[in-house]
């Protein structure tokens, strides 16, 4: 049963789909951003779990250890996390401005107001 041994991917799929569901189904913009964060974290987990080597340890060299996990995904994800928070902050700033000019953060109501203006 090879697909049971790939359980890390199934966890990733469930998380990713949960985030995706929030992004699509929720009308609240802040909630959408939360969904996006969950989605993002699932991608992080995907990368990190691919980098794991059975029996390996953290990639910090020590004389008496010779099996390490793959450091490359770690590097990519480390920077991705910080970039992710920066972009999330940008998104939240946009939400705040939307709230100030429309008075709401619900997608449907914003659409309504836009239609009224036209």
């Amino acid at each position, binding site marked *: 049963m090879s697909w049971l041994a790939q359980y890390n991917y199934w966890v990733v799929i469930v998380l990713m789909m949960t985030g995706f569901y929030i992004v699509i189904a929720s009308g609240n913009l802040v909630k959408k951003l939360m969904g996006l964060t969950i989605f993002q974290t699932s991608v992080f987990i995907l990368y990190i779990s691919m980098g794991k080597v059975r029996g390996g*340890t953290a990639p*910090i060299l020590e004389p008496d250890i010779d099996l390490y996990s793959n450091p490359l995904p770690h590097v990519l994800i480390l920077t991705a996390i910080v970039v992710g928070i920066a972009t999330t902050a940008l998104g939240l700033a946009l939400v705040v401005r939307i709230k100030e000019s429309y008075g709401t953060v619900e997608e449907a109501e914003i659409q309504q107001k836009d239609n009224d203006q036209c």
Partner: protein
Amino acid sequence: MISATIVAVLVSMLLALVRAFMGPSFYDRVLAVNMFGTKTVLLIALLGFLSGRPDFLDIALIYALINFISVIAILRYFEYSNRKSSIQET
């Protein structure tokens, strides 16, 4: 021995999680989050010893710090939304 402790910590994390889901009041959730954070600190310290590389206690330290800051932040933003009016009246 370490693994037994880890199991106990994991179970109590689970219980704290249940409390965080159930609520019922806002403060119960904050309490559960705080407790969860403390458990995570212990868990990481223990995991370091289990894997035989206890050099990574920095992470546990940062957890303790972040946990404190986030509890304070939650309280600060929540409390002041209720109390701001009463302060301004006096």
